[in-house]
């Protein structure tokens, strides 16, 4: 089983290597290799998942990767690389390889004709490998390794159109922002190692609850959590994700919606025991998640770029997941991760289909696409409904679960935030839908309506498949499934006790109502156009501006970067050049100057030398003979 896991992980890497070193000249072949490799991964991971459903006993193998013996009172370093196949990882690797596979197929159409076609598929292979490696990791160190590799692939893919300034800038921003999070993560696992002497999840799970210094554990937990905050783009590390939309749209679907950004959630779920042992940290996680959820949803209300709207939506949904985890339910968080992976990938790929047709990303320069692109339209609508959480689509079940958990754990405030976010979500998604797909087409000179056409099968195929999953995937976590099969998502992936799903009308009803309300208002404003949205924007000008500018956080960071980092650099550089160089160059020139003055003693006149020489001799003789500095005289 572990061998299979290794094979399915390494296969995409092999594809990457083969493409980069051998086949990059033949585009179709390169794509074929990548897709075949990922297909292999997909097949194997489904096989593993089914195996896990049959027998959920974790399979764990590891081998030593690096070991330095200890000597003296210091811990030796013992790092191993391992494979941990359990329900959590098998589910995650299925999601990853599935979405990766679909995205690759989709990209066949989307990236057609791009000069970097082979490179693109190579990068996707690299990403899939890194992500799978992260999933199967059995210890924090390995997680960190692949965590960074995932960041690298993300960097490469965001900056795929590297000759575009904005893409280059965005890729750097993504990597650097993630690095801030990784800094905390790295320090966290170093401290974990210092205390427990191991990185292994299984060992730590046993030892952490027995450790008495809760404050230290809390510190470590918070530090480790900064990693997920960076990767899952939680406030305040969220700034990179919207910019990351500079990458090709399928990449956004794969990395910045379905898988990589979910890695943070996955890590928290993986190391749940660490966070769970300090309630305050759980509270913090929940609040960060809740805040991000509503914060991003607010920004999404006014964005004009179709991908940015989806990006903020992703932020918001990731916030949901952290809210669930923080509230104490790993099942709910992972469940939402799963359903979200499907419908958000669907939405991104749908948006990609639109962008592919129009070469346009501004939603107000689109319109009436439903006639020309029916498949895209209806799959997009399904995805949006699922995201909005309408019964009985996938999103309903997972969102319902999260709200339920929040309520159950007594986090009423978070529950309310969740509800408001659900309303906002429904509103901004249908604002997008009514503007882009319905209503009258934008005149040709403004938009590109005349070119619009349905995308090729390689692109619509994945859309339909994902739409299907967006509808039914939620069922595995529904009470019905529990009733039919006697088990469900919550009894497959859980922390502590298995969780049985149940439908609480006190939660489901308000959630559905706010979602319908959101859709309705969006229809009134953008479908029916009862109120012109420009007028609304005018009415709430300051708020609108604030939201449009994303609360000015990017600007704030830019300012901080410029004034703190760059100024620091300049000051230090100045110190280097003026003070340190000044000191040593000063020593040099002092030597030179004093030499220049002293050489005047070299009059060239023999007798002056003799005078000084014998003067010195005379003084020495007098000193010696008078015993002033010791001598032979008695």
């Amino acid at each position, binding site marked *: 089983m572990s061998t299979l896991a290794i094979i399915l992980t390494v296969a995409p890497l092999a594809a990457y290597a083969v493409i980069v070193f051998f086949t990059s000249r033949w585009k179709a072949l390169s794509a074929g290799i990548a897709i075949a490799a990922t297909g292999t991964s997909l097949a194997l991971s489904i096989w593993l998942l089914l195996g896990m459903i049959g027998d959920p006993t974790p399979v764990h193998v590891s081998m030593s990767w690096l070991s330095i013996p200890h000597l003296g009172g210091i811990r030796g370093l013992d790092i191993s690389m391992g494979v941990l196949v359990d329900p959590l990882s098998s589910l995650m690797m299925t999601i990853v390889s599935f979405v990766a596979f679909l995205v690759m197929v989709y990209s066949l159409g989307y990236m057609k004709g791009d000069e970097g076609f082979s490179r693109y598929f190579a990068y996707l292979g690299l990403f899939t490998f890194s992500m799978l490696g992260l999933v199967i990791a059995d210890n924090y160190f390995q997680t960190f390794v692949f965590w960074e590799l995932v960041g690298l692939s993300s960097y490469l893919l965001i900056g795929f159109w590297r000759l575009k300034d904005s893409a280059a800038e965005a890729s750097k921003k993504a990597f650097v922002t993630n690095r801030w999070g990784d800094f905390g993560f790295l320090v966290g696992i170093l401290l974990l190692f210092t205390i427990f002497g191991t990185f292994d999840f299984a060992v730590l799970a046993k030892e952490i609850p027995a450790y008495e210094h809760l404050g230290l554990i809390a510190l470590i937990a918070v530090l480790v959590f900064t990693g997920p905050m960076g990767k899952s783009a939680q406030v305040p590390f969220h700034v990179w994700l919207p910019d990351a939309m500079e990458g090709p749209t399928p990449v956004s679907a794969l990395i910045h919606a379905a898988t990589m950004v979910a890695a943070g959630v996955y890590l928290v779920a993986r190391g749940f025991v660490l966070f769970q042992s300090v309630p305050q940290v759980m509270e913090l996680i929940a609040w960060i998640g809740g805040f991000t959820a509503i914060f991003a949803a607010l920004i999404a209300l006014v964005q004009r770029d179709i991908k940015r709207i989806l990006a903020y939506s992703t932020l918001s949904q990731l916030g949901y997941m952290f809210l669930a985890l923080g509230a104490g339910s790993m099942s709910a968080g992972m469940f939402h991760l799963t359903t979200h992976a499907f419908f958000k990938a669907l939405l991104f790929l749908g948006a990609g289909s639109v962008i592919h047709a129009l070469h346009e990303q501004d939603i107000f320069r689109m319109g009436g696409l439903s006639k020309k692109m029916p498949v895209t339209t209806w799959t997009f609508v399904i995805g949006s409904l699922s995201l909005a959480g309408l019964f009985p689509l996938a999103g309903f079940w997972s969102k319902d679960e999260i709200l339920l958990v929040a309520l159950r754990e007594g986090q009423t405030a978070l529950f309310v935030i969740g509800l408001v976010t659900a309303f906002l979500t429904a509103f901004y998604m249908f604002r997008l839908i009514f503007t882009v797909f319905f209503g009258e087409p934008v005149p040709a000179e403004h938009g590109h309506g005349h070119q619009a056409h349905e995308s090729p099968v390689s692109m619509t195929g994945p859309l339909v498949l994902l739409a299907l999953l967006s509808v039914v995937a939620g069922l595995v976590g529904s009470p019905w499934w529990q009733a039919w099969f006697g088990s469900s998502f919550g009894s497959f992936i859980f922390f502590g006790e298995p969780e049985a799903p149940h439908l609480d009308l006190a939660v489901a009803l308000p959630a559905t109502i706010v979602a319908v309300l959101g859709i309705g208002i969006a229809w009134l404003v953008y479908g029916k156009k009862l109120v012109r949205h420009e007028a609304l924007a005018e009415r709430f000008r300051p708020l609108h501006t604030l939201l449009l500018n994303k609360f000015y956080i990017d600007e704030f960071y830019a300012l901080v970067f410029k004034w703190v980092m760059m100024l620091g650099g300049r000051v230090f550089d100045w110190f280097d050049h003026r003070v340190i160089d000044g000191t040593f160059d000063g020593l040099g020139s002092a030597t030179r100057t004093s030499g220049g003055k002293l*050489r*005047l003693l*070299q*009059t*060239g*006149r*023999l*007798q002056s030398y*003799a*005078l000084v020489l*014998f003067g010195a001799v005379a003084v020495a003789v007098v000193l010696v003979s008078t015993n002033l500095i010791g001598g032979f005289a008695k």
Partner: protein
Amino acid sequence: MIGLTHYLILAALLFSIGLLGAIAKRNAISVFMGIELMLNSVNINFVAFNHFLHPQFLAGQAFAIFVIVVAAAEVSVGLAIILALYRRRANTGVDELDLLKW
């Protein structure tokens, strides 16, 4: 009775006088004379030490003779140099010979 000390003090006096001549005179020949005087005072020391401390073994006297030989050689070369210098600069003032300054 005249002892070693007398001779040593005499030698010291002559040496100092020679030194004064060597340092404080303008003319190169005069400087030379000072140096010769200093050499001679050293010779007095050699002979005196020999005479008063090791009368049986005449190493001191032998050395004095060597010094005289070297002094003779030195004077011949030195005066030749002074002559050559004089031909070039029409002057034998030592303090004007400062080409090697700085």
